[in-house]
């Protein structure tokens, strides 16, 4: 084959929230071309939503993603509220922000753990997931569920954060903060970690603009976008936090951004718990007027956008959903070309949606169709490279 050998990656893994199928063409150990195919988990949620009532659709969109399950209800409820200007009580706004930030913490820690695993730092993996656990416990304490919290409804939230939950929540985020500052010192400054991630899988600023990427991927390439700051919604306009932006666009920047954002989330939650006013948590709206609305939310992986066209009945006439990974995954072609196979697992992990497919990586010689490497071997390859650097 003119393009060299083909490496198919994917498409399915039971852990993966968005199965994708990557085809990498390699020349020796260098990737020379890449193709992506998605749609293996396409469930037609947009169409399904058209036959659900607005209240049912809130639960439906929560099921789009298992890890950042609040992102879609967050954007969806705001889109519906945008149609007829439904007011949300202040207390509900603060609770929404707390849930959104708790989710960012657990999602980023999950990524940090997996990134550590891929480069052979299994201690990081164990640590990150250990500190992620109390966050999930807090979700259980607040909502009754460790995942799929069902906290959102149009016009407010479904459950209050009572005073007895507050102490536990503060303790959990204190531990997260301690861990993140420890990790920043222990790992981010580690020369081997830097050697494995710096200048690897670079997404240049101009490419990032052209590909319209969002979230930490865009911010790592120097694009200053963060929906929480650009269009303050929920309680984000009432709390103080920083937009983290770095310039280099490599795997290292993406890791640092996620660690720093976790610290910012801790800051936001503390302020929310302190400033949260007493009062109602739900404005209990009755009717959705005819019209259209757009809801935006900064999910852990970037901006989520929902568009709803209402004809005045109790279900949407058209419901468009765009998840951040749609934009971020497409930028792959820019980041992997020219890199080595050993780094492919890491680069595919750096955009966050794709870490799980790496366990399904198979390298096939295009001529003989023999399997050269399995997914496990690729992770091992990636880890061995770190070992060599250590020596």
């Amino acid at each position, binding site marked *: 084959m003119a393009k060299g050998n083909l490496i198919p990656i994917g498409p399915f893994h039971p852990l993966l929230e968005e199965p994708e199928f990557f085809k990498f063409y390699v020349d020796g150990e260098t990737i020379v071309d890449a193709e992506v*195919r*998605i*749609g293996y988990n*396409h469930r*037609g949620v*947009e*169409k399904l939503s*058209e*036959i659900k009532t607005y209240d049912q659709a809130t639960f439906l969109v929560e099921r789009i993603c298992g890890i950042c399950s609040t992102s879609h209800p967050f954007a969806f409820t705001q889109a519906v509220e*945008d149609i007829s200007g439904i007011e949300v009580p202040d207390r509900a706004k603060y609770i929404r922000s707390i849930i959104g930030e708790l989710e960012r913490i657990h999602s980023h820690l999950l990524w940090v753990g997996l990134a550590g695993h891929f480069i052979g730092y299994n201690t990081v993996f164990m640590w990150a997931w250990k500190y992620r656990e109390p966050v999930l416990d807090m979700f259980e304490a607040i909502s009754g569920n460790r995942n799929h919290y069902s906290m959102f409804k149009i016009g407010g939230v479904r459950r209050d954060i009572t005073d007895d939950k507050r102490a536990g929540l503060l303790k959990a985020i204190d531990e997260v903060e301690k861990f993140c500052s420890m990790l920043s010192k222990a790992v981010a400054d580690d020369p081997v970690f830097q050697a494995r991630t710096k200048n690897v899988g670079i997404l240049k600023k101009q490419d990032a*603009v*052209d*590909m*319209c*990427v969002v979230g930490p991927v865009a911010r790592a390439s120097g694009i*200053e*976008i*963060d*929906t929480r700051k*650009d*269009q303050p919604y929920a309680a984000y306009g009432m709390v103080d936090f920083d937009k983290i932006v770095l310039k280099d666009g490599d795997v290292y920047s993406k890791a640092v951004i996620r660690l720093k954002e976790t610290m910012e989330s801790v800051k936001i939650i503390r302020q929310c718990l302190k400033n949260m006013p007493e009062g109602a948590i739900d404005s209990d709206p009755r009717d959705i007027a005819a019209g*259209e*609305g*757009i809801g*935006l939310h900064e999910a852990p992986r970037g*901006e989520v*956008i929902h*568009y709803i*066209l209402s004809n005045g009945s109790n*279900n949407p*006439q*058209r419901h*468009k959903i*765009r998840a951040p990974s*749609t*934009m971020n995954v*497409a930028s792959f072609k820019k980041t992997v070309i020219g890199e080595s196979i050993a780094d492919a697992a890491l680069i595919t992990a750096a955009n966050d949606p794709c870490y799980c497919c790496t366990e399904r990586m198979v390298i096939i010689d295009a001529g003989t169709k023999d399997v050269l490497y399995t997914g496990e071997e690729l992770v091992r390859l990636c880890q061995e490279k770190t070992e060599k650097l250590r020596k």
Partner: protein
Amino acid sequence: MKAMDALKEKFGGKIEWNIRSPRRVYATVAQQDLKEIVLYIFKILGARLSTLTSVDTRSGIELLYHMLTDKGAVCLTIRTMVKKPELIIESITNDIQGAEWLEREVHEMMGVNFTGHPNMRRLLLPDDWKEGDYPYRKKSFDSEKEGPQ
């Protein structure tokens, strides 16, 4: 809103405005002006294309280009109607690479043909999906019956 002022000055009567709120602005344009206006917003005004929505109606498919202008502070939606049954519109992918998947999705789900698109292959639907069956269309429009499907 700087972007809106710049557009009013540059394109004048070609755009019909509907300002729902300071952060939600809708602008209706004719199909032949769409590409020029979207590229102007993207390249000159430095906006980001957030997504592309398609809405099925009896006479055509309405396309909505959601763009974040003024450093993300305003969600400006450029809308245009693509007429049935031809459903042909010029692609913007060669100028905005991020639109590649968005246009492929609309093509698969609604059957809009984007001329000049570099890679109009299946993205989401399985390879053996029936040609000409567009899952996000309202089937009731085809059979001229009222009510959602």
